[in-house]
């Protein structure tokens, strides 16, 4: 049973703060400062997780979030990476992805069956016979996944801030600290981040390797603290590099800072890489750096008796640190024929440790009882680096540490567009061409000795500061040569075994033989192996597997590593929670000045873009349909008031104002008199209807143009762009927000309005389609007589801040005559009775004006308007087709070239299925059209609507509409407007209404 080592200088744990937690139901204690894994390891737990595919037993491996052997769940918190997640009081932890618990995991059956589940096996099976696949699939889906989600969990909100720095330094190891200090001293505003709880990097654990290093660390920290320009952020991950030095900095608790840096120093160091041999994934087999972190940061003994697999000096540092920690080092097994020549090598030998040079660990074997290492099988290597199993021997141990090489932590470099090359001296990728404003230092740059790293950091820091124009004075230290002497990395620490289980990627249980087989099947490039064998696809994104994977592919393809290439490094470096990325996720909402009144009156709102609009006003005793009919009736028989403030409203003024409108709208406006309005229709260059509204002429050079709620922003943008292109002297202003607007409609509207305005509302003074400027309820107003709903009506536009006042005043004045507020739905029905088209509902993405029966609004004989040229072509083709006698005019859905919007009424008496908008018109089993609007009209006592139908359908002809459930109902084409055909009512005539009442 392992226990804590004696207190040591610089340890990260607080022995005065013990924490209770449980793992797989068993209680344990650790200290504040522990990670979950260190606390479990010190408690003697060795089996900490199960692998994804074979459910093999797993323990601490990289202990740096470069593998996901130890992924746990704490209630609703899932996929916690235990190696690097702080221990907390009361955590209730379970390993993810086990069937019936970690120890007895039934999933380990897959391990026994491993030989039956080779690379890509799921592509090769389960599909025959086809009818069985769904059954297999259910099993496979059940087996998938790691942690589980808890759907009743509430959304967690993180803040999210923008951040700005001259220089961002990623990594607070020796070179990062030096870079930050140097840049700061040069006068640059520096942000320094490191994903670890404390700064120092290798200086906080590799004691043997850099003897007396903590003196160096102390100095560097002093310098950084001394510089007011440097802000250091611990436990913060630089998660990616996006365009223009845009780097999300992610903190588990504080959320994300979207950092924009002038320049970036990447000092992320290197990630230690494993050796590949049989059972190299067994609990107790770990990277040398993992063992060191356990010892120095957490005072945890990694194992009692260990074998050190070596291919560089670091290994000997590990051996010495192990000895100091009281670990018996059974052997150092050095892959290199001539072993370690440095003093470290000597020191290890002096300590009486048996060193085997030119040997490898050929296999790890489990202890008799238990799932951890029991012995290492050691085999000599021939000169080609191949093991000689016949001469293998075994050494008893409960741990194997691997120090065979490193991979540059170059994700950010790659994402920023730096070119990386494989150094055959160092056997690692190093930057060969840096992107603009990006600098690399330390091990990522191939610089390994502590003092060299500091010098390299100084250099990068000063260059980074200069890039943003700081510290011109400071002289740049000379280039620091890449690591001299024997390479820190072995070129090919990969040892095959006939029985397999030599793992390259632990996340995905990818074995050496899987890569061989992929290539045998023709997936003979790193990209295809990556996809077929899922190499590097797992949660740690190849941090511990890509390097060996590429080497293996290169070897098998007899190419160099350089030729073989790399696996694209994609965001994110460590995965980021969706809640952190989402941050506050703003949801903008637009309200009219009358919004509060609508709420008070029980309006049921509907969204139109960001706008809230009352669909109708709910009344306690009436349902939706009745409430809407009441509103419609009020407008037809009395007076109603609707908030139309969301309408688009554009001010067009200047000498060329008229010219601009003529070119944007399809109609003619030159003869439009001051004080009058005219319908305005807009098309795009393809002749498709894009928007419509009313154009009011306030003076010769001053127009007020309304547009649809959803269309106005685009229309405004286009108009301002054309003003530039055409060089017109006109100003367009978007007043959609500045003006509140309401439509007072109904036979009694004049009576209501007259009581509160200085305008003369008499028919001659203010005729139909007139526009006047005056005061309404004391508020300066633009009033237009429009006929959209087909009654006498006044659209009143007032400055937004006076909107509520005017609304209240009109409502008050209307009380006497029973004024009623009406919503969008009632308005839709009122205009439908008039056969008016709603752009976007009765038109689609391809509708031209003729199809929408709006040919009358299109003037092809005027000089120009957007879309005119295309419409001329269409007109010409139409005539040609006419002459061809219109054969080949079969209507296909809505892709017809000669469809037209037609009014129709249902002919059924009494009850029956009611067609809905977008139900189809059917004839001889073919689609001949589509309903675009439909509603019950109380005025007419009928269900009426608009539909796209073949152009030749005459009034009185019948067709059928297929309703929900497939029943066909009969409809008859009728003339529009359905109601008040000669529009006398909106023109102020007092024609009697025939109001049918009753219901369909």
């Amino acid at each position: 049973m392992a226990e804590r080592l004696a207190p040591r200088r610089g340890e990260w744990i607080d022995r005065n703060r013990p924490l209770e937690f449980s793992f797989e139901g068993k209680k344990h204690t650790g200290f504040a400062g522990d990670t979950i894994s260190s606390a479990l390891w010190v408690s003697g737990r060795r089996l900490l997780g199960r692998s994804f595919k074979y459910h093999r037993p797993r323990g601490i491996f990289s202990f740096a979030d470069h593998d996901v052997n130890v992924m746990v769940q704490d209630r609703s918190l899932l996929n916690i990476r235990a190696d690097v997640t702080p221990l907390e009081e009361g955590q209730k932890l379970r390993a993810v992805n086990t069937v019936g618990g970690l120890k007895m995991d039934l999933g380990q059956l897959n391990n026994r069956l491993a030989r039956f589940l080779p690379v890509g096996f799921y592509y090769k099976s389960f599909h025959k016979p086809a009818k069985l696949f769904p059954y297999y699939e259910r099993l496979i889906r059940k087996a998938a996944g790691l942690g589980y989600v808890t759907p009743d969990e509430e959304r967690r909100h993180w803040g999210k801030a923008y951040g700005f720095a001259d220089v961002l330094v990623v990594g607070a190891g020796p070179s990062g600290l030096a870079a930050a200090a140097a840049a700061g001293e040069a006068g640059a505003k520096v942000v320094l981040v490191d994903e670890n709880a404390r700064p120092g990097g290798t200086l906080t654990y590799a004691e043997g390797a850099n003897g007396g290093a903590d003196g160096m660390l102390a100095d560097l920290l002093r310098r950084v603290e001394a510089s007011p320009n440097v802000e250091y952020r611990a436990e913060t991950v630089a998660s990616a590099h996006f365009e223009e030095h845009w780097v999300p900095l992610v903190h588990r608790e504080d959320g994300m800072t979207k950092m924009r840096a002038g320049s970036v120093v990447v000092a992320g160091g290197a990630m230690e890489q494993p050796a590949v041999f049989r059972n190299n994934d067994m609990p107790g087999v770990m990277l040398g750096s993992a063992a060191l972190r356990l010892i120095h940061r957490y005072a945890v003994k990694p194992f009692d008796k260990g074998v050190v697999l070596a291919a560089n000096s670091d290994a000997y540092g590990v051996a010495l640190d192990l000895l100091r920690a009281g670990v018996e080092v059974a052997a150092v097994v050095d892959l290199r024929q001539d072993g370690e020549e440095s003093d470290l090598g000597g020191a290890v030998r002096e300590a009486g440790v048996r060193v085997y040079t030119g040997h490898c660990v050929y296999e790890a074997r489990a202890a008799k009882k238990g799932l951890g290492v029991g012995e290492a099988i050691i085999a000599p290597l021939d000169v080609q680096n191949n093991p000689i199993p016949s001469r293998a021997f075994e050494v008893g141990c409960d741990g194997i540490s691997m120090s065979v090489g490193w991979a540059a932590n170059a994700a950010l470099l790659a994402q920023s567009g730096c070119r990386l090359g494989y150094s055959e001296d160092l056997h690692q990728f190093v930057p060969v061409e840096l992107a603009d404003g990006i600098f690399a230092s330390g091990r990522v740059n191939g610089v390994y000795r502590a003092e060299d790293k500091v010098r390299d950091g100084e250099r990068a820091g000063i260059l980074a500061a200069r890039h943003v124009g700081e510290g011109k004075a400071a002289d740049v230290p000379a280039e620091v040569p890449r690591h001299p002497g024997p390479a820190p990395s072995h070129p090919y620490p990969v040892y095959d075994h006939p029985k397999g289980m030599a793992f390259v990627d632990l996340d995905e249980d990818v074995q050496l033989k899987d890569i061989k087989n992929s290539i045998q099947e023709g997936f003979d490039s790193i990209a295809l192996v990556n996809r077929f064998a899922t190499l590097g696809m797992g949660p740690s994104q190849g941090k511990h597997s890509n390097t060996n994977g590429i080497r293996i592919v290169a070897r098998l393809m007899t190419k160099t590593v350089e030729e073989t290439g790399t696996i694209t490094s994609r965001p994110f470096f460590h995965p980021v929670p969706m809640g952190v990325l989402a941050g506050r996720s703003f949801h903008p909402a637009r309200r009219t000045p009358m919004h509060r009144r609508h709420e008070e009156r029980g309006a049921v709102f509907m969204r139109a873009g960001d706008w809230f609009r009352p669909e109708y006003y709910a009344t306690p005793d009436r349902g939706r349909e009745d409430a809407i009919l009441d509103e419609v009736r009020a407008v037809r028989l009395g007076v109603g008031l609707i908030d139309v403030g969301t309408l688009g409203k554009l001010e067009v003024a200047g000498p060329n104002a008229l010219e601009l409108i003529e070119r944007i709208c399809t109609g003619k406006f030159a003869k439009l008199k001051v004080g009058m309005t005219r319908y305005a229709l807009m098309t795009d260059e393809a002749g498709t209807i894009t928007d419509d509204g009313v154009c009011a002429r306030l003076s010769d050079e001053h127009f007020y143009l309304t547009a649809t709620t959803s269309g106005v922003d685009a229309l405004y943008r286009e108009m301002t762009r054309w003003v530039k292109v055409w060089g017109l002297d006109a100003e367009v202003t978007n007043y959609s927000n500045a003006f509140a607007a309401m439509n007072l409609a109904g036979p009694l509207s004049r009576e209501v309005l007259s009581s509160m305005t200085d305008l003369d509302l008499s028919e001659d003074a203010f005729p139909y389609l007139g526009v006047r400027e005056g005061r309404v309820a004391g508020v300066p107003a633009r009033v237009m007589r429009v006929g959209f709903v087909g009654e006498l009506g006044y659209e009143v536009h007032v400055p937004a801040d006076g909107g509520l006042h005017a609304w209240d005043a009109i409502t008050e004045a209307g009380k006497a005559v029973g004024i009623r507020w009406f919503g969008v739905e009632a308005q839709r029905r009122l205009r439908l009775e008039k056969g008016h088209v709603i752009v976007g509902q009765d038109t689609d993405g391809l509708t031209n004006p003729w199809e929408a029966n709006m040919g009358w609004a299109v003037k092809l004989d005027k000089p120009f308007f957007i879309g005119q040229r295309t419409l001329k072509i269409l007109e010409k083709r139409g005539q040609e087709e006419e002459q061809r006698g219109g054969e080949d005019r079969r209507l296909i859905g809505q892709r017809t070239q000669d469809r037209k919007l037609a009014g129709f009424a249902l002919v059924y008496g009494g009850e029956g299925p009611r067609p809905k908008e977008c139900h189809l018109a059917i004839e001889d089993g073919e689609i001949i059209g589509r309903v675009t609007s439909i509603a019950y009209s109380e005025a007419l006592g009928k269900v009426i609507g608009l539909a796209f139908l073949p152009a030749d359908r005459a009034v009185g002809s019948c067709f059928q509409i297929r309703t929900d459930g497939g029943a066909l109902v009969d409809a008859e084409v009728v003339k529009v407007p359905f109601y008040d055909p000669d529009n006398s009512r909106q023109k102020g005539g007092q024609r009697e209404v025939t109001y049918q009442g009753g219901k369909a």
Partner: protein
Amino acid sequence: MKILNCPINGPRPVQEFVFGGELREMPDPDVATDAEWTDYVYNRNGAPGLRREWWYHLASGTWFVAERDTGTNDVKKTYLYGDEVEHG
């Protein structure tokens, strides 16, 4: 995040802008053949390369021209329509 340099408002994140498509000369509708006109209406230059594009700064309502390489997303320069003065 991509930065665009608005000639009036200076460098801003690309979300402050609306993309207005390639800057294209409208053929004279009275002279152009039907084929030339429909080519103008529908056909585009989709291949990567340096292009003059319309961009619109939402908050200020500023239209301007950006010379952007659609292969690399590098913006060579930006200027107001009709004035080719460089703005970075």
